[in-house]
């Protein structure tokens, strides 16, 4: 058995990235994710990698674009205001079919907001974020172990589909320490990146990484190709966790840190005999639409818990069986506004008691 380490979430993410073969990091400091660039600046030079503290978030996402165009695994990390700045580059990466990892250890907003744990960047993450009608892969870890595991998965999915991937966390999963069992990365047989630039080096054809398509019908075809990939993602790559859904009369749904807090609330409900289950999306894009549809064929009530004023709830409503009722417990983030399991339990009681 591998040794159990006691590690902070942000450090686990950085460890997972390096284990997955990422050797290039570009970023700009911002709370509450600075452990990630600090870890990378310490470790990457020791293993032949490159760390650049860029002049801005804009520069760092474009350095990622450049590195990724060369076919290597590379990443950037930031927090909400910085991720807004990166949206331009993310759109270009999506349009240029470039993989790459973007980490958002989300803080509260809008504007400068605060540094408290937040899930208010859900829309920005799953609906495209930048201009032009695209999606990126979005994974939401809810534990330190998942910060490690899902980072590896994010690189794999990103490379396989040539779509940028995002880890969407917050200061709870980023600052929390838990046991981590590191394990070796195994390449799941990904195709070679023969599209990358390298200098022609004897090749007859140029490698061109671009998102500009001006010929008649070219851009439409390019968009349809990208959207076909998103469809395949929905078909093959959805991941979620279901806890005691079989007999549930009320399903609590939440992702990331809100799911962690909700787990205890669901346990409290079960302890007093309430039939409550938990459905936790792990991939926020592709969203587990079918899982919600199926679970709500037998359970007609869903309580969506979010650290925002209600965002994922819209995707839940679009996904559930038409007869299901969806309720929201949205807590906009800020100092002293982090919900406790007890508070969520109160909400569970409220909607559960209404059933009978």
């Amino acid at each position, binding site marked *: 058995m591998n040794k159990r380490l006691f590690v902070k979430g942000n450090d686990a993410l950085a460890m997972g990235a390096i284990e997955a073969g990422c*050797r*290039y990091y*570009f970023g700009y400091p911002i709370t509450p994710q600075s452990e990630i660039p600090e870890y990378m600046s310490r470790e990457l030079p020791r293993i*032949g990698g*490159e760390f*650049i503290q*860029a*002049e*801005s978030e*804009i*520069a*760092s996402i*474009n*350095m*990622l*674009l*450049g*590195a*990724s*165009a*060369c*076919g*290597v695994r*590379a990443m950037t990390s930031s927090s909400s205001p910085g991720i807004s700045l990166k949206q*331009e*580059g993310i759109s*270009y990466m999506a349009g*240029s079919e470039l993989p790459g990892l973007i980490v958002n250890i989300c803080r509260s907003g809008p504007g400068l907001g605060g540094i408290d744990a937040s899930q208010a960047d859900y829309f920005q993450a799953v609906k495209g974020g930048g201009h032009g009608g695209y999606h990126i892969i979005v994974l939401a870890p809810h534990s330190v172990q998942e910060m490690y595991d899902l980072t590896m998965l994010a690189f794999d999915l990103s490379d396989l589909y040539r779509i940028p991937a995002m880890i969407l966390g917050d200061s709870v999963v980023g600052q929390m320490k838990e046991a981590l069992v590191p394990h070796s990365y195994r390449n799941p047989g990904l*195709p*070679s*990146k*023969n*599209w*990358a*630039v*390298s*200098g*022609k*080096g*004897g*090749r*007859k*054809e*140029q*490698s*061109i*990484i*671009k*998102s*500009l398509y001006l010929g008649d019908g070219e851009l439409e075809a390019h968009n349809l190709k990208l959207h076909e990939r998103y469809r395949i993602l929905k078909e093959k790559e959805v991941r979620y966790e279901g806890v005691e859904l079989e007999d549930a009369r009320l399903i609590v749904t939440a992702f990331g840190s809100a799911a962690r807090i909700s787990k205890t609330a669901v346990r409290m409900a079960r302890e007093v005999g309430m039939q409550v289950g938990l459905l936790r999306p792990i991939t926020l894009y592709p969203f587990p639409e079918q899982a919600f549809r199926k679970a709500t064929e037998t359970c007609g009530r869903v309580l969506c818990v979010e650290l925002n004023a209600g965002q994922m709830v819209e995707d839940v409503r679009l996904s559930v069986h038409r007869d299901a009722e969806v309720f929201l417990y949205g807590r906009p983030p800020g100092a002293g506004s982090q919900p406790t399991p007890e508070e969520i339990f109160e909400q569970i009681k409220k909607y559960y008691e209404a059933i009978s």
Partner: protein
Amino acid sequence: MTTVLKPAFQRPVSLKDVQTHFCPGCHHGTIHRLVAEAIDHFDIQERTIGVASVGCSVFLYGYFDVDVVEAPHGRAPAVATGVKRVLKDRMVFTYQGDGDLAAIGTSEIIHAANRGEGITVIFVNNTTYGMTGGQMAPTTLPEQVTTTSPYGRNVGSEGYPIRMAELLSILEGVTFSARVAVDSPRHVLEAGKTIRKAFQCQVEGAGFAFVEVLSACPTNWGMNSLKANERVGREMIPYFPLGVFRDHTAKAGKKPQGESKLSHLGKKS
């Protein structure tokens, strides 16, 4: 005795045999050729990666027969940084216009220069936004009329044209910074040598090299080709003097270049 006749004029190998989309009298074609000649001179076509910017120069890959990455507007030096840090033994150049480099991309160019990234930057200054239809650029001359300075550039409210070659020359990270023009045969020859030197800087691992090229934009200036060409010497050069503003190539020496890690790449047929 047989005499082998060499052609006196031929297309550089790294320039594709295609017609350009550039307007008649535009200097981009000349500058493209000078860059291609430099690439041929050092025989680096097979290991060169161009970074295209946004503007008239976006179609870089259409003219240069090298690998190309397209960058968002102004971000070419950051993209080139990412490429060069991965592929340390490749030759990486950006080709940017004045809106791209001197307005929206000032942050990226200054910091790439300041870090001394081992790239070559070709900066085409034609005092206007070409592709978007002749708007005021950061390099637009005082009193110059453009579509967004219809009464002439008012330096009181719009500031003065930025001299990028001089600006970058004060940064310690910069090895070579110069300004050239391509409005006369003599200037073209000088420009060719200077661009070659900027590539040599990279070939020798000596650091960041920058060449600003004064260029005509007849269409947006509302002039015919000859008049536009004349304007470069008459109006631009007095404000943007030609010359080398920093040359530390002798001092810089050879920086260590790491091996590129390319084992992960599949072969393309």
